[in-house]
């Protein structure tokens, strides 16, 4: 029953443009003094935008100036919305106008545009009205131009739903081995042998960035590994909200391993919001505490090299991963193991085997496969000058 309602709603949204009112008066009209005026409704909007094309047909020495006014015609009143002074250079001009602020109405609505044109003088005074034209605008609930985004999201959601359901019922999904993750065990072991703490920097991003969320997902299984060896784990943070989530993650991971005594909230701490102040203080911490292993996973900007070089200097083993294209080269050059881009997101599924994450990773993979196939087909079709894919599906 739910599925039927869902499908019904989608179909209604898709075909709603058919039920909106047709535009009238969408052709050129001619007036005297002569001008050609056309009102164009902006397609796929909420009914508030119009374009007006105005071409003066009189010579400049007959009528030098015009005044064009756009009104929002309501049932009982006409509200002046825009007024344009035009100098007659014989050229056709196009004006855009918003009939009403869309926040006045909570849903799309058809408005009526009224155009009046006057011959005018240099001061812009109204001399002689010679144009009066109205048009009702079209509105749509659904912007057809964004259809590809809608379909992409719907397909992805269906895939995510299917794969998470399967993963929860115990189906084993394959994620290929990601080099660098096998090193996590040896990194933790090395730090334990040296009797040094482990540092985990979840990047300098906020919770609205995916890399930060992926990093916090990886923090849980790493904390569980660390809990087995009772090695001190420290998590410096740049964002207070990320720190709150990291504290919860670390505490729950310690509890899951049966070692709630190991959790100290001072070990997951906030330093500062300033990017380079954070970099400076973390570098100072590395130099003083000389960690055995450093994890740099998450969103990094320019301070990434400072972290990597300082950790290298103190002799720590570094495992880094980020989706910032500009910082990956630094991590590759300076760190022992690097997770490039999407490997960071897949790593959280690989390490934890959490059905949610594994299911999402598989759904991402299938969507990627679909996009690769679409791209391939698009390239082949484009060679034969067939542009269905570029014009309708992968729109610019």
């Amino acid at each position, binding site marked *: 029953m739910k599925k039927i309602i869902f499908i019904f709603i989608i179909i209604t949204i898709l075909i709603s443009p058919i039920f909106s009112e047709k535009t009238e008066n969408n052709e050129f009209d001619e007036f005297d003094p002569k001008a050609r005026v056309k009102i164009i409704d902006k397609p796929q909007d909420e009914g508030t935008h119009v374009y007006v094309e105005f071409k003066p047909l009189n010579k400049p020495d007959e009528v030098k100036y015009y005044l064009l006014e756009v009104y929002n015609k309501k049932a009982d009143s006409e509200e002046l919305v825009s007024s*344009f*002074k*035009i*100098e007659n250079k014989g050229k056709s*001009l196009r*004006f*855009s106008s*918003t009939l009403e*602020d*869309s*926040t006045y109405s909570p849903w799309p609505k058809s408005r009526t545009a009224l155009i009046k044109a006057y011959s005018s003088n240099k001061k812009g005074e109204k001399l002689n009205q010679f144009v009066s034209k109205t048009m009702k605008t079209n509105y749509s609930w659904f912007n057809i131009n964004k259809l590809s985004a809608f379909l992409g999201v719907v397909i992805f959601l269906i895939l995510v739903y299917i794969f998470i359901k399967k993963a929860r019922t115990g189906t084993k999904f394959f994620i290929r081995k990601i080099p660098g993750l096998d090193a996590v065990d040896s990194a933790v072991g090395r730090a334990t042998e040296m009797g040094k703490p482990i540092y985990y920097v979840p990047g300098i991003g906020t919770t609205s960035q995916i890399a930060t969320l992926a990093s916090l997902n990886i923090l849980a299984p790493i904390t569980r590994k660390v809990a087995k060896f009772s090695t001190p784990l420290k998590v410096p943070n740049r964002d207070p909200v990320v720190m709150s989530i990291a504290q919860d993650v670390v505490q729950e991971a310690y509890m899951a391993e049966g070692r709630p005594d190991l959790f100290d909230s001072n070990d997951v701490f906030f330093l500062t919001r*300033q*990017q*380079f102040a954070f970099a400076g203080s973390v570098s100072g911490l590395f130099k003083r505490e000389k960690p055995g292993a450093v994890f740099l996973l998450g969103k990094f*900007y*320019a301070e990434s090299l400072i972290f990597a070089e300082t950790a290298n200097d103190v002799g720590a083993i570094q495992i880094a991963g980020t989706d*910032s*294209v*500009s910082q990956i080269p630094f991590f590759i050059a300076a760190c022992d193991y690097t997770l490039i881009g999407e490997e960071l997101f897949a790593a959280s599924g690989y390490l934890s085997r959490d059905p949610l994450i594994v299911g999402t990773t598989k759904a991402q993979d299938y969507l990627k496969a679909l996009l690769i196939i679409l791209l391939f087909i698009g390239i082949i079709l484009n060679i034969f000058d067939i542009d269905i894919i570029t014009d309708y599906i992968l729109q*610019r």
Partner: protein
Amino acid sequence: MADKNENKQKDKWYVKIMSIKKPYVYLGMFLVVIIPFLANLQIKTYETELVGQVYNKIEKIHEYNINHPDKKKGVLIGFDYGPSTTPECDPIAYSVFRHLFLRDIPIVVWAPYGPYLELADSRLNRIAKEYKANYGKDYAFMGLAYPATAYMVSTSSDLRPVFNTDYYGNDVYDLKILDRFNNYDNFGLVVSISGTAMPEYWLRYANSLYDQEVSVGTTAVNAAKFYPYANSGQFTGMIAGLKGAAEYEQKVTRLEKEIVGKDVKSYLRNLYTEANREKFNKEYFNPNFNEGAIRTAMLRRHQAGRGMSSQFGAHIYVIILIIIGNIGYFFKRKAEKDRTKRRRGV
């Protein structure tokens, strides 16, 4: 025997060149950067297509404004950089502002984070002072636009209600420039001068949702990330790093000499007289150019160009170091392989 071998290895030239102490490398870098800088060397730089696209777009807006004086288009500047990236972004900001003021294009500026506000205020007014721009008529600084995405989306209809006041506390409905320049329909271009990933947000919310053309002036760190967008046409050109800033500076300096005359110093000296000084509100800038201020203004016009000479030295230095390091590494590995072969042979 093993010790003797080790000592022999240490004397080899390829081991020596790979173990140059770090302080000497840093000292070399310091000298190579500081000497061209202090000698005030300027290198002319070749101009690339991406920077040209930004310049040409602003010129097109200027042509459009001349042909349609009642339907002028303005430019919205996202001042998206802070004190930590001023060496690269300041020259970009100065040249873009200079270009816009020279061409009388109305400018609206906002900044998405607190620490950027004072920087934006000082940079904007510094350049406005050089072209006798009137605050409220020729340019406006809206202040803090946090969270930036809400403001980018609101500008599709009207940015005034979300700001309430500008940076200086003036009511938004009192500023004449905002009567017209308050939504994307009347902005011909958005320029995001940034040291972070903010231009991606401009792309997502201004360009993809509302088809607004966006250009970017960015630090070199982010330039590599934005190249795919610049190549696909989503960004209308890109000014990348100090090199991009130097190119843009060159273009704008040429333009300035055409418009203002070859002697920019005397233009600045004669800009403010006793007669016209009262017209300018001293809250924004002090309408007076003394010799020190003129010297600084002239130096600022070549800030990126002077930096490029040091860049050139630094890049050559690092290339030489990389080649030396690779040669040393190659011979070291070769020697190790030979030793292993000899040991196996014995």
